[in-house]
């Protein structure tokens, strides 16, 4: 390792030891998270590999990796920024104008703006190109009407990356446009939805005549699908190489390390089950490491990132299932006064989220089949038909 990297690691380690909140495992408060991001930015550890001209540090993936390794010992309060950093920001960097990059990237990296991703709708999730939210020309801008759903962190968000329909006469993929929308604008209503774990991390959003200036448009009019694909590629890579890592983050009671401490490993059946978990964790960890090395060597993984996302979703489900089964009845009924006792029930309750958010397992398999293995596509009824003549969503 070069002396620069060694020095960088040392600096990261010292800074984290002095500034990372001790003992935190949850997302913490929004105000704390914003303050932390600002400190992180000022110390030179936010947007490490992002272009310097837009506010990043302009360093390489190697530095980012070193920082992530050091940060692995902590749970940094960056949850509210994960959508912005993982997919919205990279989309702006890839596809925005210089003016847009100047406006948004530094603020994101400094924790000034929380972003959300406004793609899914009640009638369009896997088939997101079937979305119905309209953006219509009004003067020198646009007026947005419609509804989004399952939007993570929207209740805290300042900005949203919006995909909306701008042409109903064109086929579904050819009438979409991407915008950045001000979540505080008049006409935006955000309602938190309680998810199956009992938390409210995602929301439904209503747009009533929301004005969006044209300078907030990303890419060309009706070229939104291409933009969305860029966002989704970043999403899968950011999930599979996510901050929690393959082991599901520090303090995960279903991780191999946690289970070996709590289970009776003298029982050969238990021992073999733990070996299976270990093998799966290592297999994915090494695959992620290889993809990371390829990226640094200039080989962009593209759709292969979907394999990482799929494998992480499956591993997470497998682990939660295994951990609760090994624990037995204690996993499903506990004394609410005992700290941490409901951890495995929690792990089981959040596990399906990863297999749905960011594209379901079936969609990941479709992508691997179509774009990595180049298999013949399925016949489709929706390709060259004007959107207004298509069936979408739930139909009786």
């Amino acid at each position, binding site marked *: 390792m070069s002396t620069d990297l060694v020095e960088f690691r040392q600096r990261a380690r010292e800074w984290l030891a002095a500034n990372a909140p001790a003992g935190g495992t949850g997302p913490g408060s929004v105000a704390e998270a914003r303050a932390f991001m600002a400190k992180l930015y000022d110390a030179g550890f936010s947007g490490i590999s992002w272009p310097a001209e837009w506010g990043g540090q302009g360093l390489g993936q190697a530095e980012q990796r070193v920082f992530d390794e050091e940060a692995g010992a902590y749970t940094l309060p960056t949850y509210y920024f994960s959508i912005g950093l993982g997919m919205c920001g990279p989309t702006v960097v890839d596809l925005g104008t210089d003016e847009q990059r100047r406006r948004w990237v530094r603020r994101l990296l400094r924790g000034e703006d929380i972003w959300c991703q406004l793609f899914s709708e009640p009638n369009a999730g896997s088939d997101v190109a079937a979305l119905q939210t309209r953006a219509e020309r009004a003067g020198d801008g646009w007026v947005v009407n419609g509804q989004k759903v399952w939007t993570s962190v929207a209740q805290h968000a300042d900005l949203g990356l919006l995909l909306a329909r701008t042409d109903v006469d064109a086929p579904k993929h050819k009438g979409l446009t991407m915008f950045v929308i001000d979540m505080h604008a008049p006409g935006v209503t955000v309602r938190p939805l309680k998810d199956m774990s009992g938390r409210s991390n995602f929301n439904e959003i209503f747009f009533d005549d929301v004005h969006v200036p044209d300078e907030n448009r990303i890419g060309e009019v009706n070229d939104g699908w291409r933009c969305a694909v860029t966002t989704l590629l970043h999403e899968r890579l950011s999930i599979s190489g996510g901050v929690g890592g393959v082991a599901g983050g520090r303090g995960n009671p279903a991780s191999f390390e946690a289970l070996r401490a709590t289970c009776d490993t003298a029982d050969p059946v238990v021992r*073999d089950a733990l070996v299976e978990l270990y093998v799966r964790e290592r*297999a994915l960890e*090494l695959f992620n490491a*290889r993809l990371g090395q390829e990226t640094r060597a200039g080989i962009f993984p593209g759709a292969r990132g979907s394999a990482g996302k*799929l494998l992480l979703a499956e591993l997470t489900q497998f682990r939660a299932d295994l951990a609760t089964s090994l624990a037995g009845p204690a996993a499903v009924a506990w004394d609410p006064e005992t700290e941490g006792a409901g951890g495995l029930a929690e792990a089981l309750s959040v596990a399906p989220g990863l297999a749905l958010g960011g594209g379901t397992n*079936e969609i990941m398999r479709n992508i*691997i089949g179509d774009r990595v*293995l180049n*298999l013949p596509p*399925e016949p489709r009824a929706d390709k060259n038909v004007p959107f207004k003549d298509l069936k979408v969503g739930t139909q009786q």
Partner: protein
Amino acid sequence: MNLLLTPEQGELRAAFRSFLREAAPMAEVRRAMESADGYDRAAYARLNGELGLAGLIVPEEHGGAGAGFADLAVALEETGAALLPGPFLATVFAAIAIRESGDPAAAKEHLPGIAAGSTVATLAPLPGTPATVEAGPGGALSGELTALNGAEAGLLVVAAGERLYAVDPQAGGVTRTPLATLDLTRRQARVRLEAAPARPIGTLGRTPDLVAVALAAEQLGVLRRCLDTIVAYSKIRVTFGRYIGSYQGVKHKLADMHCALEQAESIVRYAAWAADESPADLPEAAALAQAYVGPACFRVARDHLLLHGGIGYTWEHDAHLYYKRAKTDEVLLGPPRGHRARLAGLLGL
């Protein structure tokens, strides 16, 4: 940790692939497996001569290329993908054992012949497999063991516990009986030693781990070829007016097979790196490689056979040859539970 191939390794792979495509296509593999020798001696000699196959990991001072496991893995992936018949893997195992034995005299005596391709060798019993070999007075060996390409070998490297011995199968006290094998492309023999003269050549050392890494590389090659073959077929076979690869029942299975390939390749690169560069990681890497790659290779080989439909169940089709190789390899170093138990031990479970 390095998990990527170097440009030179990319070239090595291309050289092996094109040579094997020309010299050992499946028609030749079938001819060889049905022949008396079980392999094509001329093609094997060319492989050793032109590509230095057998000498790859033999140190340069003994006439080899002095390559490491990262290079060896590239070669083994290709010989595995081609189901190359003959004693290559067995000879590599023996070369690994001699290299690791820490016995310079044995290296000097045996490695040049291996590198030149004139010595066919085998290591027996393979780590993880049962055998009863005992050293009697004067170092003569007695016992019974199974040896990969044992009937073809001109040199037996025999392990009795931790100790290694060189045995000349032509000398007295050695009886070899060919075994019937599931894998038709690679032979095995029962070897009976009755006070067979043997020369001690040091100890096993890291050999069990290194052999596990080498085998995993072959398995990766088998896995990849099976996936490539069935992906290609699913793009040309039509049912109900559509290519079978367009059906999700097929496509999703292929996607899962691809995921297995990505992880298997990552593990093999890691294990080869550990073998070359990081002795402390080698035991875990070797056990992990066999615990994951062996069963994954068999599952992919099985599904590749099934997705061919009825033709995949015929003797004429090659799918069963891969299927049988995959299962044979999976249990070559003992049943998979042995690797998992080893891993459990290394992890302190």
